[in-house]
């Protein structure tokens, strides 16, 4: 996958998640879509050479601000709007699995078992480093994201 194709693909996914976040009738679905948009933007920052900014983006917006939004939605009772908990759970798990599969496919297609220093592209170096030295961290991270989405969906389903 070339760099241009990757940037177009990530941009399209970001715009799609933002459209879901802005034009969804249910605030909980907007929150989940916004979480994915923030995470994707952090991935963009990491891919294009600044892992610190990407990490700060994910920690701040995907973590702290999403929890703040969740707290405000629970406080203001917007969860009484009613959501399809089963569909949301399935959608969240499917989205997390798709994200993990895409990451895995990209890493597997670009590595081929060589050492990270052989890659001139900084994005491949970052992924190669993660895949060589931190594969379990990636797996745990994806599992934690999926569990968090299921927990959010369960919180809303208990309110309704």
């Amino acid at each position, binding site marked *: 996958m070339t760099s241009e194709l990757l940037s177009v693909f990530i941009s399209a996914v970001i715009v799609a998640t933002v459209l879901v976040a*802005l034009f969804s009738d249910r605030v909980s679905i907007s929150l989940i879509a916004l979480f994915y948009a923030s995470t994707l933007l952090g991935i963009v920052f990491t891919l294009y050479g*600044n892992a610190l900014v990407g990490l700060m983006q994910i920690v*701040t917006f995907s973590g702290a601000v999403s929890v703040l*939004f969740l707290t405000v939605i629970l406080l*203001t009772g917007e969860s009484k709007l009613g959501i399809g908990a089963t569909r949301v759970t399935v959608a969240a798990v499917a989205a997390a699995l798709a994200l993990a599969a895409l990451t895995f496919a990209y890493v597997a297609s670009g590595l081929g078992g060589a050492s990270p220093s052989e890659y001139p592209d900084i994005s491949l170096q970052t992924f190669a480093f993660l895949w060589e030295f931190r594969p379990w961290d990636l797996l745990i991270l994806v599992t934690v994201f999926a569990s968090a989405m299921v927990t959010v969906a369960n919180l809303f389903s208990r309110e309704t």
Partner: protein
Amino acid sequence: MASDQIVFLFTGGLLVFLGIASISYSKNLVKTVMAFQVVLLGANLALFSSGLSGGDSCLVTDFCLTIDSFVFLSILVGAAVESVGLAIVVNVYRKYGTLNPSEIRKLRH
């Protein structure tokens, strides 16, 4: 890398436009804050993409502040502003019992 820059600049501009449009028509204050976050994401993406073309060019030479430093600063300031906005939303809901801006405007008079 130049085409990446153009793609991300376009995406950032599109996100800013979508966010401002959603702020203007939103009927829920929480959705308004979410739209503000979308504007912030677009601005950060556009700012970050503007630094993709050059090398390690220091914008402020004394401290070597790069574009990434400003993106970092923008993320932190944006998160703080959103926190204050959400606190205001909670207080407005406690006082007026609704999050619809037009209803709040009617209740004030």
